[in-house]
């Protein structure tokens, strides 16, 4: 595909126009990726100690369901509460976020390492020390996102 990129200070927000003869899977993926790229510059409202903070996605380490709450942990391990369900957050957040189980989404750039466990699951250790499990059903998509499948 021929790609043209114009860089100028006159563009306040990035704006993309695609010239295609028909909608293909690749084009749809590109559109989705570009839309999510825009989401990276957005912030997520999160509550902590009865105050609302606006978190940058790149500062978020892990988001998971804890009981009825959707908890969000940042780089420094501060715990915030979000008011959006995980499936909605998954669509809002950019491509550096990946689902690891039905109840958790992680920022790939904040993963420290993964460890194998005897039961066939994999334990994921974040840079801030938080741990969670990659469930078997999400392992394939996790590896795909890393470019391993």
């Amino acid at each position, binding site marked *: 595909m021929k790609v043209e990129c114009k860089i100028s200070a006159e563009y306040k927000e990035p704006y993309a126009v695609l010239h295609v003869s028909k909608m293909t899977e690749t084009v749809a993926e590109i559109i989705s990726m570009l839309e999510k790229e825009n989401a990276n510059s957005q912030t997520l409202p999160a509550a902590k100690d009865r105050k609302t903070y606006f978190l940058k996605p790149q500062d978020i380490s892990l988001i998971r369901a804890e009981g009825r709450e959707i908890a969000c942990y940042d780089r420094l391990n501060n715990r915030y509460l979000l008011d959006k369900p995980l499936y909605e957050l998954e669509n809002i957040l950019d491509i550096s976020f990946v689902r690891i*189980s*039905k*109840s958790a989404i992680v920022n*790939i*750039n904040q*993963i420290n*390492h*993964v*460890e*194998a*466990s*005897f*039961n*066939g*699951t*994999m334990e994921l250790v974040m840079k801030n020390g938080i741990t969670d*499990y990659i*469930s*078997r*059903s999400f392992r394939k998509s996790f*590896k795909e996102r*890393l*470019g*391993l499948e």
Partner: protein
Amino acid sequence: MKSIVKLTVKYILYGISLGCTFFVIMCLSFFIWGGEDLLAAICRDFARQSAGAMAVGIACGGTAIVYQFDRPGIFFKIAIHFCVGMGVFYPVGTYLGWIPFHPDRILLTVLQFLSSCAVFIVIWFCFYLFNRNEAKKINQRLRELERDHSANESRP
């Protein structure tokens, strides 16, 4: 609900295929390495033997479905998998003659039970080695991505 039913069916079929594969490998090894008397005994009782292999396959392989759920805790999941697997394998194995059973010789029975546990642990360990290798690849990829990410961030 529909997805749980679909997942359960998938794991039952996975268990059956695991049991059948082991059954065929065992029969084939008897055939190749001269256990023809054993093979003949299996053929005479084929229906029960194959059904037993499938049941053990479901109990050992199919119960791995517990790891798909977020609850209960990880050690409880291992306990369910181990207890159901052993709880079916040992009685079926003794009933079908895979494991000799001597109720009057307690020590021998205990040793047989422990060796069955050892077989389970060996299988688990093989899965662990496989997962450890996967984890190693993932960690390697994460380091590469981290290098790319920091290179992009330092670019003006």
